[in-house]
């Protein structure tokens, strides 16, 4: 079920403002791809075009092609709602639904698909997803409690469980650890390694060590110049990016001489 994503000549706008220009890359299936770069260079913006969450913001639009497994996401016949059901997303701040229990939070996406689920079927989805998110042992005795009662790291893993409960083709993560402490971060990173065998994962991160630890390939984004749109500077295997990058700009950013 994991799919690859081809991005070609993508320009992303907020109203008349061109935020990101000319992105070309291929995100491979069953690999972790990391986006790094300074704040405001468009990494999250690019990530959000991959499941059409970008256009939720009024005036935002995308030019170019994003193709998942031969299907162009921005084809006029494609329903953005259907895209988002195939491509899950985890956000910067954990966002479980505050009024729902842990159990209902995990099933939130499945319930949208409107199928009537049997109780045991629902139970097994919840167990499988929570196990997949390494949260099962911590919450199995309190599934009926509200999701907001968990710690930040647990909430984020609950959100991951919610995202994988619908078995998406791709999992997008927008700085999933930036609001978490180091121990929770390490738990999420371990989880990313495990999820890789089933899902294509794209992760935006500010933490370069994290990118080096979890990803197979890395894209470095930067602004062309102050006031100019963001662009993809270099896209290479993570090992190469962190040892011997092609672009001097990447080298400068990674070694901390800039940004």
């Amino acid at each position: 079920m994991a799919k690859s994503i081809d991005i070609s000549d993508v320009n992303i706008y907020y109203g008349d403002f061109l935020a990101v220009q000319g992105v070309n890359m291929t995100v491979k299936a069953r690999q972790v791809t990391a986006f790094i770069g300074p704040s405001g260079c468009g990494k999250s913006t690019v990530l959000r075009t991959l499941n059409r969450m970008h256009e939720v913001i009024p005036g935002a639009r995308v030019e170019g092609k994003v193709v998942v497994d031969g299907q162009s996401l921005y084809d006029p016949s494609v329903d953005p709602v259907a895209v988002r059901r195939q491509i899950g997303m985890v956000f910067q701040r954990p966002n479980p639904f505050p009024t729902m229990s842990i159990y209902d939070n995990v099933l939130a996406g499945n319930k949208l698909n409107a199928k009537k689920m049997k109780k045991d079927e629902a139970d097994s989805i919840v167990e499988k997803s929570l196990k997949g998110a390494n949260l099962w042992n911590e919450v199995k005795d309190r599934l009926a409690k509200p999701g907001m009662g968990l710690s930040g790291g647990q909430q984020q893993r609950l959100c991951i469980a919610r995202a994988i409960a619908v078995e998406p083709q791709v999992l997008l993560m927008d700085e999933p650890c930036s609001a978490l402490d180091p121990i929770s971060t390490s738990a999420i990173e371990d989880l990313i390694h495990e999820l890789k065998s089933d899902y294509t994962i794209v992760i935006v991160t500010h933490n370069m060590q994290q990118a080096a630890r979890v990803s197979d390939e890395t894209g470095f984004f930067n602004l062309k110049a102050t006031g100019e749109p963001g662009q993809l500077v270099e896209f290479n295997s993570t090992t190469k990016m962190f040892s011997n990058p092609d672009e001097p700009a990447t080298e400068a950013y990674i070694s901390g001489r800039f940004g």
Partner: protein
Amino acid sequence: MSTTETERTPPREPEAPRGVSRRGDTIFAGLAKGSGLFIMLALAGVALFLVLQSLPAIGASGENAYGADNIVLYIWPLLFGTVLAAIIALVIATPLAIGVALVISVYAPRRIARLLGYLIDLLAAVPSVVYGLWGRETLQSWVFPIYQWLADNLGWIPLFAGPVTTGRTILTAGIVLAVMALPIITALCREVFAQTPTMHKEAALALGATRWEMIKMAVFPYSRSGVTSAILLGLGRALGETMAVALVLSASGVITINLISSQNPSTIAASIALNYANASGIKTNVLIAGGLVLFVVTFAVNFLGRWLAARGQAKG
């Protein structure tokens, strides 16, 4: 509504280090304390006036109590009419207001949403006398054929028993009140809906929720307590409204749930407005006793609203 507000916000003194007093702080604290106290005193004064003036009415009967045997029998039908009209108004206004607020805050493109918002706010600027005249002259002739149809086809429901001889019924008054309560409910709902955190809305959308599903998953649970307050504030407006009801309703002071006959219960506020100019002696006290009852009911509704809202927030 300001009553419960004042109880909740007695100005708290800033924890300045002892011995240090700044003139600005002192003046502001005094001003805030003074205003809080003033509102409390004004409220207490109103309550005191109502109680004292109502006392002589306790023994009133017959002619003095507008034909009722005692004061309770006089006020009870009016209270019934007041609550009935307000409930009709809310039953109509609430779904409409929530719908309009959703259109404005979620569905409509920004420019149209803003225009619609202005239009709804304008409804609040129309004087209630104008609503009364509109209900009496225009609305009643529109709804008259509808009432006839209701009586003919749904007459077996006690609400629509008829017979229909006029459009100026309690249902018409309820509709007018609904239009008047609409702006405040819409405005508050709109604010609450717009405050739903983006992260919850995006959580729903990213799972593949349609806009309506997003509203159900993220917006409604978040705004439940705010919407409750909005409805109860609308109820407060509908309960106390005077002129519109006085003009629209052809009242005869009965207690009935038949919404479309010519025999309609009146409301407390309308009855005071219609009778006070000609009242003298004990009759004045009887009318003021009605006012006291309305005061207590409105107070209770607002109190309930605040309580529900606070409880909803605690659940969060």
